[in-house]
């Protein structure tokens, strides 16, 4: 670990990221508007996956409550800006982040005391609790969800109305807001991981007990990461409302968290950018599956199953240059093949 974990290890990696960003920046002008919308959805998914990756990759915490903070962010827009009375985004975004962060603070304070499986189950239950509140009561439109007024893109008195654009470009504003937010999310999280705070999280991921013995109040750092991740999940949820103008309780369901985790696994567990790659791959996979069959979830399920079994470091971690691994896999049929190098479980598990 010569430089910070989870980030590109050389200028080549940063260049690749910059090229990716450039492609996204000009994409809307070259593809049909359907794909502009689809890419926006993928970027929102990427923001959610990025935020949970701060926990998973940064601190080794697997939370199943994360989708709920995303949903809380989306629902905050609904409560602030219900159908018919739109509010400016400069108001709704900070409030959505604040509310999600507060929820994360409460849930985190209660669940951070637990570790490993307990943490998983407790976060799962908390996520379901938030889901239940919006699902079983009439507070937010109940089971069916509700429409809301998309926040207005206004700043310093200048208001931008998407309707002023030609029809083919009306999806552009949401696209570019999402693009900007994705870039900012990545850069902020990358900065956090590079900072001393990120180093402490990395230490906790490797060996929490040792960090405690060194004098780190590990619960405090984990809670900090949990809240920051919750804030960014809320921002992603806000973007969902801004893009779709609709919320329903499924946004808070634990499946959302599981999907975000899938994206991380697909993209690459040891790289922050893996969350973005995974989100795009997952969205593309769903789209490709839909064009082939109406069994989208089956295809996704099978691909994920395969990914979990063989692709332990995700797309970013494939080492095609090492064909010996393929041979090894063929020679020992009792074991599942493994396409990527992985650290011994021992070190990763010292936390338990």
């Amino acid at each position, binding site marked *: 670990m010569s430089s910070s974990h989870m980030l590109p290890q050389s200028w080549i990696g940063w260049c690749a990221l910059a090229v990716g960003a450039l492609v996204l920046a000009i994409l809307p002008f070259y593809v049909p508007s359907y794909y502009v919308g689809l890419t926006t959805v993928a970027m929102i998914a990427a923001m959610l996956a990025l935020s949970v990756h701060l926990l998973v990759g940064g601190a080794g915490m697997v939370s199943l409550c994360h989708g709920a903070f995303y949903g809380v962010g989306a629902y905050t827009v609904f409560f602030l800006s219900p159908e018919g009375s739109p509010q400016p985004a400069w108001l709704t975004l900070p409030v959505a982040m604040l509310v999600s962060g507060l929820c994360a603070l409460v849930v985190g304070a209660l669940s951070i005391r637990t570790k490993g499986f307990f943490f998983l189950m407790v976060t799962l239950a908390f996520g379901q609790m938030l889901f239940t509140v919006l699902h079983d009561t009439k507070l937010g439109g109940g089971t069916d969800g509700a429409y809301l007024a998309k926040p207005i893109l206004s700043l310093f008195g200048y208001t931008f109305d998407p309707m002023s654009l030609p029809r083919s470009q009306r999806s552009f504003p949401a696209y570019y807001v999402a693009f900007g937010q994705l870039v900012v999310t990545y850069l902020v999280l990358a900065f956090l991981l*590079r*900072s*001393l*705070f990120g180093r402490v999280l990395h230490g906790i991921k490797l*060996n929490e*007990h*040792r*960090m405690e013995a*060194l*004098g780190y109040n590990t619960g405090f750092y984990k809670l900090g990461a949990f809240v920051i991740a919750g804030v960014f999940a809320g921002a992603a949820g806000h973007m969902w409302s801004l893009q779709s103008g609709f919320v329903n309780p499924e946004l808070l369901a634990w499946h959302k968290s599981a999907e975000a985790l899938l994206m991380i696994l697909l993209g690459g567990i040891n790289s922050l950018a893996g969350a973005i790659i995974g989100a795009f791959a997952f969205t593309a996979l769903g789209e490709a599956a839909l064009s082939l069959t109406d069994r989208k979830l089956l295809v996704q399920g099978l691909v994920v199953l395969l990914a979990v079994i063989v692709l332990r470091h995700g797309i970013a971690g494939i080492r095609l240059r090492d064909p010996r691994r393929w041979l090894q896999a063929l020679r020992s049929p009792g074991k599942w093949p493994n396409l990527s190098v992985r650290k011994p479980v021992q070190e990763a598990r010292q936390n338990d």
Partner: protein
Amino acid sequence: MIDQPILQTEDVSRRFGGLFAVRNVTFALAARGLHAVIGPNGAGKSTFVNLLSGQVQPSAGRILLRGQDVSGLPAWRFPHLGVTRSFQRTNIFKSFTVHENVRLAAQATRVFGKDMFSTVRRTAHLNDVADRAIERVGLADQRQTIAGILSHGAQRQLEIAMTLAIEPQVILLDEPLAGMGQDESERMAALMGGLATDHAVLLIEHDMDFVFQVADRMTVLVEGKILATGTPEEIRRNAAVQAAYLGDSDVH
């Protein structure tokens, strides 16, 4: 007041289920010098260190640091109060370099608040602290080596460097020589002798030769209880110790 103990226990016990691992131990650690705790396997030595460093809470009794009751404080507070420890099983971050390991230790008690969000490059003072600790244990020429590929002895030295980076007054060493060769043991003995001149060092060790050679004081634990405390000479002559613990093994 020179001999005022820095760390004391008063009638401390620790039970696991129905079993006493440590039982009614009253103990004092002087502010300077090397105090060895010996005892047969299962005598409760490791639990004793865990109690002194807050990893384990006492079931009964008090632990006093500079006269203040610290029993029940969470483990992470102890380094901030000047008490650090090493572990019986080597417990370092194997994927980090030597320097990164020690700097992480140095950061624990020095960086708070908004400084958390500065990058590594801007924190030169941490690097200096880390370098001093690395130098003191004699790993200066390996400071950029990945810790996982160090020799076993060097990993143990690194572990001590990590405790030093906190700049503690009390150092608790849980079997620092485990698995070390003769040369490495001698170097470690010299290092500990040096540390004991300006720290309170508590050492748990199996190697009797080594203990009698370096310790200023010794305590013998048997079945969780203190059998005897005194200078190595007193312990060597103590009949109860000879009968109960040292037995027929040759005592020098």
